[in-house]
């Protein structure tokens, strides 16, 4: 399939000639009506016979239908080329030829393509042809009588899949390999099923398939995740604030990018599968995932498939994941827990009190935290996780109760070093004071609730009587 430079030049001239004819055909679409009359006289002659079902037979015993569907020809971009230009003979001179196999015939026919098209020698075609199984010819991908504009073929993803549904491997400079065979089934299950390949693989098109060289598989993933921001800009800007992005700018390339969590061709809605979402974080944060899986929340999610249970992203967020060791993160913990634990409807399902959040917020530490946040000078102060645990949150009743009590004293002593075992009891454990729990507090509050209005009302009455007496006497 090699031509000398002078031959190539000749091919180019023919090519431009044909392209100008194509342009002509495009400008006068009336020519394209679906009748034989739309074809040249010579071609009409060919169609007289090839309109009907008939076969040629090969020595191997294979047969091939030589019927040409009129609509294929008419819809083809080669419609104006004429049978003779590809097949090399006319109805008047119809040589009898013998081919051993069907394959031999098709590779013989495909040589005709290279008379005009040279792109098999450039770009991705060249690369592909060097890897392609022996005997792969143009028509295998582009079809024969139905040849179309490449851009028309790319309207769907079929064009790309024409190659990428085959076994293909991409190689990186460091020797790593990436399978780039795409399963159409997976593609169609993705939320992106209505997008075309080139929406994400921008820079690529039917005409243009740049050959790029990436250092490593990881480099490629990171580069590709840039595609996502073209549509999901809000999420992208959020990730700029995340600890992952921050680490990446410091040169850590193993931090996750979009596709590490969302997948590439199999992208699913991020909200649907809670458990698999949590597991994704576990890919890197394995130890934390293990602890989480044993917690009251992780346990409910994993063993009971309880979708109410929070997963990693419910507290750490999905895109703008901040460093959880900062005071800023610590300061929003009561709000995070409150997202569920102050939700009456949700807590009712599990017989949990929603007073837990408010009792904290109204108490010394809650008030302090509130003002620290308002002041913008954060200092560590006890929040939910200090007593209840972080990833290892346990039930506050039953077995967990003693554990929390023990946590409590240890946590108290961090800031109140001289705290004794009595000290944690000064926190009345999220209960609104009542007669059973904290009777003293309850009694004092009740007493004042009666006494204050009684006193103030009495004094006001005296004042009014005094004024009245004064007015009467005057």
């Amino acid at each position: 399939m090699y031509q000398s430079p002078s031959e190539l030049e000749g091919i180019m001239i023919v090519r431009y000639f044909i392209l100008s004819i194509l342009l002509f055909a495009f400008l006068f679409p009336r020519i394209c009506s679906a009748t034989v009359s739309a074809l040249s006289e010579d071609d009409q002659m060919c169609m007289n016979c090839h309109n009907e079902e008939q076969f040629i037979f090969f020595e191997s015993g294979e047969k091939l239908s030589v019927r040409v569907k009129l609509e294929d020809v008419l819809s083809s971009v080669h419609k104006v080329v004429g049978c003779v230009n590809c097949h090399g003979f006319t109805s008047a001179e119809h040589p009898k030829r013998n081919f051993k196999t069907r394959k031999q015939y098709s590779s013989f026919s495909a040589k005709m393509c290279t008379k005009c098209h040279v792109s098999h020698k450039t770009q991705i075609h060249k690369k592909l042809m060097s890897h392609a199984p022996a005997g792969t010819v143009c028509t295998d991908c582009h079809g024969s009588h139905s040849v179309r504009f490449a851009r028309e073929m790319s309207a769907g993803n079929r064009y790309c899949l024409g190659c990428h549904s085959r076994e293909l491997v991409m190689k990186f400079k460091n020797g790593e390999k990436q399978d780039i065979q795409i399963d159409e089934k997976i593609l169609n299950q993705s939320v992106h099923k209505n997008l075309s390949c080139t929406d994400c693989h921008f820079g690529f098109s039917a005409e243009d398939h740049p050959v790029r060289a990436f250092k490593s598989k990881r480099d490629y993933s990171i580069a590709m995740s840039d595609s996502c921001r073209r549509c999901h800009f809000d999420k992208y800007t959020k990730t700029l604030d995340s600890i992952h992005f921050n680490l990446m700018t410091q040169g850590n390339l193993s931090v996750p990018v979009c596709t590490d969590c969302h997948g590439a061709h199999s992208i699913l809605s991020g909200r649907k599968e809670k458990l698999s979402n949590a597991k994704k974080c576990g890919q890197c944060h394995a130890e934390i995932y293990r602890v989480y899986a044993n917690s009251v929340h992780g346990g409910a999610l994993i063993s009971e498939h309880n979708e109410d249970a929070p997963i990693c992203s419910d507290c750490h967020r999905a895109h703008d994941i901040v460093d959880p060791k900062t005071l800023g993160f610590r300061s929003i913990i009561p709000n995070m827990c409150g997202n569920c634990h102050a939700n009456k409807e949700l807590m009712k399902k599990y017989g949990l009190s929603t007073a837990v959040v408010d009792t904290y917020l109204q108490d010394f530490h809650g008030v302090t935290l509130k003002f620290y946040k308002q002041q913008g000078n954060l200092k560590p102060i006890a929040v939910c996780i200090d007593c209840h645990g972080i990833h290892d949150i346990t039930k506050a009743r039953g077995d967990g109760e003693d554990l929390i009590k023990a946590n409590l004293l240890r946590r108290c002593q961090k800031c109140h070093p001289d705290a004794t075992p009595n000290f944690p009891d000064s926190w009345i454990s999220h209960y609104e004071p009542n007669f059973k729990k904290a009777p003293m507090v309850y009694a004092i509050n009740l007493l004042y609730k009666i006494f204050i209005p009684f006193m103030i009302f009495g004094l006001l009455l005296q004042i009014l009587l005094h004024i009245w007496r004064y007015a009467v006497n005057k």
Partner: protein
Amino acid sequence: MKKQDNEYIKRLHPLRIKEHWANAIAFLLLTVTGLSQRFHDYELSQWIIMNLGGIDAARLIHRYTGILFTLLTFQHILVASFGVLFFKWQPSMVIHKKDFTDVIDNLKYYLGMSEHPARCDRFDYKQKFEYWGVVVGGLLMIFTGFMLWFPAQVTRILPGEFIPAAKALHTNEALLAFLVIIVWHVYNAIFSPDVFPLDTVIFTGKISKARMIHEHPLEYERLFGVTHGDSLIENSESSPAGVGETEQDP
């Protein structure tokens, strides 16, 4: 009668006046920094705390003012005790049975069931009520306040529940004290028709003879005897409306 109007009788020692204002400042600071903590959800509270320099600053001011208030309260108790025990001061703030009957008498008078208001001594029952309110309430606030300041030390001896109980006492008592002061004390010192626009005794330490005869007739009699008090007899026996007139005519 006209002559008496310009006559003033010394009522308070200058130290007592200074004591009052020191107490007033402490009280004001304590209520501002304390109630804004109790009612932290209100915007005004947040404005106050933020302008004081944040919650830690507000708490610091509250606690140090608490120390000032404690010192004032204890010096008062000591001075008063020493005065009564060793310097023959009249224990004029001691509550007697008469104070209770005075309340009833005065109420009867207000309701028109009696011709005369209660005849009071150096301090009438309203003043005794406020005085003991400040002393007893103050001691309670001091006690519970220190419990809240040093919870770890307190729970070495007492069960943990005493801390929230102390908080309940401290905050409720604070609200009560605040309301009594702005309702009762401010009325009696400023808005009461007897003193309006301002009771000046706490500034000058002197009371007009007419007012003294009207408000503290027993003390007047004790000090000046009945002989000095021909006008007193006239006054106390004349209709209360007459007394009102003298008040109206400063």
